[in-house]
């Protein structure tokens, strides 16, 4: 029995952490956001490290890693508020691996795995329709009709996996007529979103899409839970650092027992859930009976706690916590994204209850 990370996994986290800290430290992200709402992020560096292809099979140029490894990267991505398309890309990759024919996989996976091409996923529809059964986008004769919202911004030459009624998946392979993008002013500037209108766009159906869609959703829950965990632990650390410096009444704020106990209570809420998202990610690969349910629980529980912690930490800062110049709102808004994307906490709790044995 072993329930912990390997030294290799810890090293991988440290490596990614170091890349983010050097390529896009929070203050640099803030600086970039002053002049642009586009956050490129260190995609080529991550590609060199094999991050885009982590989950792809080795024979298709990927790393052949497990979902737990991807979740560990997601944790670090949350810690560093990583800008860029990684989330949508990973889900698109999982869609093709899980839903595509062998030919489709061979055609698409290698370039996605190398990071040469960027993929994304067009999942939600207006009115909080995250459930694949609720999708209304139609595909007829390989042409798409309908609308998707909250799509992680695709690259111009990117590949877009589109959820179609009733619960299937199709792929738009690069620029196409019949697709119209419109901007969505998203809360998380590091992961911009767009809306997509399909009016006869050419797409290829993924033959095993309906199976893959559920797997995607479950994997997404685990990744978002890990990301939110990373965000919350970073916010706590930033808050401790600030309060350790800030003096009032001739004393560093962190020395007040009221502050200490509030931080301790946050740690009691958060730290035990590390084992929860570890297990969710592990179970999705190894305990199929439990994985989907635990992933839903992890997303709901960790998303809500991370949000509470983020909000309490803003207040612990005092007014400076509310200022845009203080980077904690990067993580705060990222947690808002993590909680809402793929559906809210109540939705996933209801799902977990449906999947329960009781």
């Amino acid at each position, binding site marked *: 029995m072993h329930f912990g990370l390997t030294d290799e996994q810890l090293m991988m986290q440290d490596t990614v952490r170091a890349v983010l800290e050097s390529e896009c430290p929070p203050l640099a992200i803030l600086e970039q956001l002053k002049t642009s709402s586009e956050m490129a992020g260190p995609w080529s560096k991550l590609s060199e490290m094999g991050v885009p292809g982590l989950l792809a099979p080795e024979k298709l140029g990927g790393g052949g890693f497990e979902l737990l490894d991807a979740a560990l990267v997601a944790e670090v991505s949350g810690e560093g508020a990583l800008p860029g398309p990684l989330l949508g890309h990973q889900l698109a990759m999982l869609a093709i691996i899980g839903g595509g024919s062998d030919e489709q996989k061979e055609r698409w996976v290698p370039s996605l795995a190398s990071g040469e091409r960027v993929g994304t996923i067009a999942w939600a529809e207006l009115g*909080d329709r995250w459930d694949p059964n609720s999708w209304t986008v139609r595909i007829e004769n390989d042409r798409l009709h309908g609308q998707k919202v909250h799509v992680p911004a695709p690259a111009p030459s990117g590949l877009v996996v589109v959820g179609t009624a009733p619960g299937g998946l199709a792929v738009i392979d690069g620029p196409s007529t019949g697709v119209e993008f419109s901007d969505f002013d998203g809360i998380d500037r590091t992961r911009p979103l767009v809306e997509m209108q399909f009016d006869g766009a050419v797409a290829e159906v993924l033959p095993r899409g309906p199976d893959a869609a559920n797997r995607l959703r479950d994997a997404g829950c685990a990744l978002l839970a890990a990301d939110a965990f990373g965000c919350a632990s970073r916010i706590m650390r930033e808050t401790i650092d600030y309060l350790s410096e800030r003096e009032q009444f001739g004393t560093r704020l962190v020395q007040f027992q009221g502050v200490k106990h509030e931080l301790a209570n946050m740690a009691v809420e958060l730290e035990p859930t590390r084992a929860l998202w570890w297990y969710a990610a592990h179970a999705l690969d190894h305990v199929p009976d439990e994985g989907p349910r635990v992933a839903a629980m992890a997303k709901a529980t960790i998303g809500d706690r991370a949000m509470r912690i983020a909000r309490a930490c803003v207040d612990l800062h005092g*007014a400076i916590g509310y200022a845009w110049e203080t980077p904690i709102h990067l993580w705060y808004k990222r947690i808002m994204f993590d909680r809402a994307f793929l559906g809210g906490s109540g939705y996933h709790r209801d799902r977990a209850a449906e999947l329960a044995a009781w």
Partner: protein
Amino acid sequence: MDLELGPHHAQLREDVRAFLDEHWPADDEKAFRRHAIDRGLIYRHVPREYGGSEQPTDPIADDIIEQEFTVRRAPLGIVGEGPDMIVPTLLSQGTEEQRREFIAPTLLGDILWCQGYSEPSAGSDLASLKSRAELDGDEWVIHGHKVWNTGARNAHWMFGLFRTEPEIPRHGGLTFLLIPMDQSGIEVQPIKAMTGHQEFNEVFLEGARTPVRYTVGGRGNGWAVSRSLLVHERNLMGFRSQQLFNNIVDRARDTTIDAGPALEDGALRRTLVDLEADLLAARYSRYRALSNAERGNDPNAVLAGVVKKLHATGLVKRLVQVGIDLAGADEALRDPGDATVDLGRANEPGGWALNYMYTHAVAIGGGAPNIQRNIIGERGLGLPRDLRTPAVETARTSNPNRGDGPS
């Protein structure tokens, strides 16, 4: 206890509606406000001689007026540092000359104010502030640096605390001054909030000047003057919370949970009841405070007073959480953009996200929550001072109205 919605209240509601039929919409808000003052509908606590409408205390009447004005989107009294803070301060502490010069124009919006309390190194610990004023003939000459000032860009005047007696430590050496903003010794730089809006400013004072006659409450008495603010504090938060609640109910009618309207969902209904219980608790606590202000016989009035702020901010935080969750991904994933913190419009795009973040300004403004907790413990529950905190803190914590926050 006498809370009957009497015939005079029914009459008042009719009167207010008739008034609004006659005067609103209007192009000229100032003229509209003049009419409203004449009819006793706004600035009801300010004497006629200074431009108010001087009405007896009647929170039920206040509520009726607020309700009717809000439904019609007609402007009530101006909200802000002027009418809410400096007017009551001048009424209780100002010279007759100051009252005549400032109050009426402030109520009509001809003079806008900003507040100069917090400094970079003096937030919760306001008594440690450093900006100083020195006498030069019959003028104060001011050097310093204020932060978390909301109105500085538009304000005509600033009020605030300045160190005038450098030899007296902490709160003893402060004086409350009124300073004209339109002068070369003052520079204003905006501070952007996490909402993306320019909500605050820094104010740099370098040789700014103000005549000695704009000293309020006497030299060295600034701390006491700033304390008196709390007594007159308006309870806007309660009204705001009620509006947010109404927005949630509206949203719940239009949102679907499990194929039915969210408003029929059992869990949400219980949550709404919980929220409403605290709205009622806050409302009747306000009535209770007003009654006690007249009769002074409430043995728990001090405790009730010191818990008010944390109760209100806790409630507003629960409200925005319920609201944003109910509004769903389309709202939670959306930047507030140009949404305004409009009490009645949380359901417009960006409204919930903006309110969600704005509650931090509400929570922090006027005193960090932990400072409030100390005050509640010490003044409300009679607990001793913290374990060996510096003696200076006593003075600080005796002023619950200020803190490590936007002002």
